[in-house]
């Protein structure tokens, strides 16, 4: 890609609704141009800027895994003008996309290790990408534990897939909601508490945390307390990214720009960056 400021065209192939209130929708996008498809190489954790002419751009983590070919998946929460406009899209409509941007989860380092995935709310997107990726070559990794929390049962995304993952015996799935609700048979309580309860031993385990800032803020100390070293904890940060190419200054924290030096940072790196969570 020559000019990172110019979006490429994508076509909406499939739209899924994630919650009853219909504020969370999942979009599968296919490439309009073959050349773009060939050039698009990404790994779990990276993000893209989705672009609506006349409205602007917003960053979204890629929810599909590179092992799933032919489409890119994004889950969009309806909050602002761009996401509103995305929610108006129908199958077959075109949308602009810039990416892949940012770095990725340390998948190479995870080989031969246990992996702990901690997610919250609709930030589970890139974690889904990671999970699918890991399962694509399941034998390369040891135990995989997933802790996923949401405010209430409706706000989990990818519910169908979660049901499938729960049936597998090679993934430990722990779901939790903030407050008890009738008919909920899984855990209740905030993510950090659940992590403390069910996290595997830190030996040979890499932890990946992604969720709302407040969840990250309280989960990281728990992992440290459990004995995870700073190099073994990774998290994905969020800021209002605009240019995605390390210039416009919005996502600047310390000497880093989240859009090119992140969004994935190890806890060791975060210790040298002020104002992170």
């Amino acid at each position: 890609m020559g000019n990172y400021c110019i979006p490429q065209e994508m076509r909406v192939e499939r739209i899924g609704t994630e919650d009853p209130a219909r504020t969370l929708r999942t979009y599968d996008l296919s490439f309009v141009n073959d050349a773009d498809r060939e050039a698009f190489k990404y790994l779990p954790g990276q993000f893209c800027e989705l672009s609506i002419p006349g409205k602007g751009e917003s960053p979204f983590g890629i929810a599909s895994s590179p092992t799933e070919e032919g489409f890119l998946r994004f889950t969009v929460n309806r909050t602002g003008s761009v996401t509103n406009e995305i929610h108006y899209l129908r199958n077959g409509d075109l949308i602009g996309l810039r990416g892949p941007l940012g770095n990725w989860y340390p998948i190479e380092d995870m080989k031969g290790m246990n992996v702990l995935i901690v997610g919250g709310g609709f930030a589970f997107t890139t974690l889904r990408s990671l999970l699918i990726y890991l399962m694509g070559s399941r034998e390369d990794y040891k135990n995989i534990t997933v802790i996923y929390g949401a405010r209430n049962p409706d706000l989990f995304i990818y519910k169908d897939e979660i049901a499938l993952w729960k049936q597998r015996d090679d993934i430990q799935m722990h779901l939790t909601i903030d407050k008890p609700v009738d008919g909920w048979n899984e855990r209740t309580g905030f993510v950090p508490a659940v992590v403390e309860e069910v996290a595997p031993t830190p030996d040979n385990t890499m932890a990946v945390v992604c969720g709302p800032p407040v969840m990250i803020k309280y989960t990281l100390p728990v992992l440290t307390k459990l004995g995870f070293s700073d190099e073994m904890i990774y998290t994905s940060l969020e800021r209002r990214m605009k240019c995605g190419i390390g210039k416009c200054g919005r996502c600047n924290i310390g000497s880093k720009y989240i859009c090119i030096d992140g969004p994935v940072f190890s806890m060791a790196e975060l210790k040298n960056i002020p104002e992170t969570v």
Partner: protein
Amino acid sequence: MNTTDNLRKTIKTLISEKKVDLFLGWEKGSLPLSATPLFVTTGEQAERAIFDVTCGNNLSIYFTKDKKQYANKKVGIAVKGCDARSVVLNILEKQIKREDVVIVGVPCNGVLDKKKVLAATEGREVLELVDNGDTVTVKGKGFELSLNRQEILSSSCLACIYPDAQEYDFFMGEARGEVPNEERVKEIIDFQNLPDSDRWEQTRAEYQKCIRCYACRNVCPSCYCNVCFVDQNDPKWIGSTCEYTDSVIFHVIRNLHVAGRCVECGACERACPMDINLLMMNRKVAMEVKDRFGDVAGLDINGKPAMSDFKEDEKQKFIMG
């Protein structure tokens, strides 16, 4: 005793008697032409307070900055006539409570406009300034000039009719009273008498300079919306480029938003990095508000801002018959 000594003494008393937790005043700045806001919490700091021709800042801006930062605090504030009206407006608009502020009026003879000083020195840098009252002495490398005060006053001061605080707890010295200012509307009337095409050309030329830095809005004590209409993105009302229609619309709407609330302190004009004659529109609006509704912003602490009030039998000649 001069104003500055009087002011220092008052601040010290207020602080030592715990009448206020914080006092907002001015002190000498790092540049000769501008004083800088001073935040006094101790008697020692009070010794730094000054008041002279360089004290242009309208300190009431700090009541609305970072909302509620002075909540549950007693704050004292030094005010010129225009600043006092801002404070009153803040009280009327429920941003602060009257009982939480101690208003200290200073007798104001106008504050300077840097660009007028610079014009008087023909661009030579001023390194020292002495306020002698009717004249102001400026010194720089190889020159010393005695300037007539009127010559360097901010245009807002030249048009001022209420130089004293109308609402205050203490007043430092002698009030000047209402100044009959016949020159006040001259510029506006002159402009109004031009044909509309000329007026438009001048407006366009003036606002074409705007670089949309929003300094005027941000220094304005009456502009404190959480999200300004230009920053809204859904709908995105107006473009953010320097395109002149966008700039004109921004300034017209900002003027209407501060209609009946603008105290004409001139903070916007002094902050403008592009020297736009911003106050012209403000004064036109103030004139209309006064003529039509008989209201002057921030004058009456028991009143109501003009645009949130109405009378049933107002003139409505402008309505099509």
